[in-house]
């Protein structure tokens, strides 16, 4: 049983690509972001930050879809993601298209 539904507009969707930013010295090494990243982007590193904790490190940067869960789960405001610059144009275009569609529908 490994079937997955295929969205009908899969050809139109471009999976967003995110970029992770970490302020290492703010991190207290709780591991929430690593544990709950749905795309397995992060791992704990071996290095120590200024407070003596192990901050996370980006393991699979290409997997990040900019969902922002790490940013919301981080209790120390130390990690966040942004949309990669080349995706921003696409997402803008897409939202413009969506708006157009929405207008037509209404």
């Amino acid at each position: 049983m490994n079937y997955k539904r295929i969205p009908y507009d899969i050809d139109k969707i471009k999976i967003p690509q995110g970029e992770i930013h970490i302020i290492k010295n703010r991190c207290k090494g709780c591991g929430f972001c690593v544990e709950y990243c749905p795309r397995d982007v992060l791992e704990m590193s071996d290095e120590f930050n200024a407070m003596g904790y192990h901050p996370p490190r980006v393991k699979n940067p290409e997997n990040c879809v900019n969902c922002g869960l790490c940013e919301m789960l981080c209790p120390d405001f130390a990690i966040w993601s942004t949309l990669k610059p080349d995706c921003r144009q696409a997402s803008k275009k897409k939202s413009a298209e969506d708006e157009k569609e929405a207008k037509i529908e209404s």
Partner: protein
Amino acid sequence: MIKKEDHHPMESLLRMDRIPHIWCPGCGIGTTVTAFIVALEKLKLDFNKVCVVSGIGCTGRVAGYINLDSFHTTHGRAIPFATGIKLGNPELKVVVFSGDGDLISIGGNHFIHAARRNIDLTVICVNNFIYAMTGGQVAPTTPLTAYTTTSPYGNFELPSNVPQLAESAGAVYVARWTALHIRRLTNSIIEALQKPGFSVVEVISPCAMYYSRINRLGDGIDMMKFYHENSVIKHNEPTENLDIDYQKEIIVGKFINRERPTFTDSYNDWLVTEKKAQSKSMI
């Protein structure tokens, strides 16, 4: 929220000169704060008109980190202080951000009566089952049999059920989430902020240093995993079923969403519109 590469997106709503905060590694209060900040950003409120009032305790320190008009008051008195602010200037959106010990134990009476009057406040109650700032003493929310420094043989007092207390006292919006249900928590905070009247959002939050250490429950992340596996979303569940037993399933969700006139509305309707107050002066 405009995201930049060099600044954390929540920095505009944080007092960055006070970060890093004092909360321990694995604590869920910071996570609750991010949910609150995201909720504020999504609502596009005028941040000059939002006040945060906290009492004393770990969660009481929230007032010191959020870059809004914020008041760090005495133990248990966050709700009456917030009542004063709200009645002093009804334009303001007043949020009480405090812990279970502060709101339910020493401030329990204020909690009940603010709910009864339906003062237009949003109460975010971070429940970590323990008095953490003072070193891990038994709280009114500590589950039965759990160890704390002042229940060294296991807690034998029945804990409070916060949503049931809020409902029976008259709150118009009651929800409970864990610090892990971060998006649902955000949505609940948004709804609570928009709801006129006394709204309560309880957040079950890991205390890695005191609650989980003395009970041998692992780190904050282990508590989060426990929430992940044992929390059950049951919207509109009758609040009497929401007791939390030690290391048993935690029912989360949105339980109460009802309409009652707020204190300010009743005051205006009764005294201003109905003019009940005419020529009643003593002299």
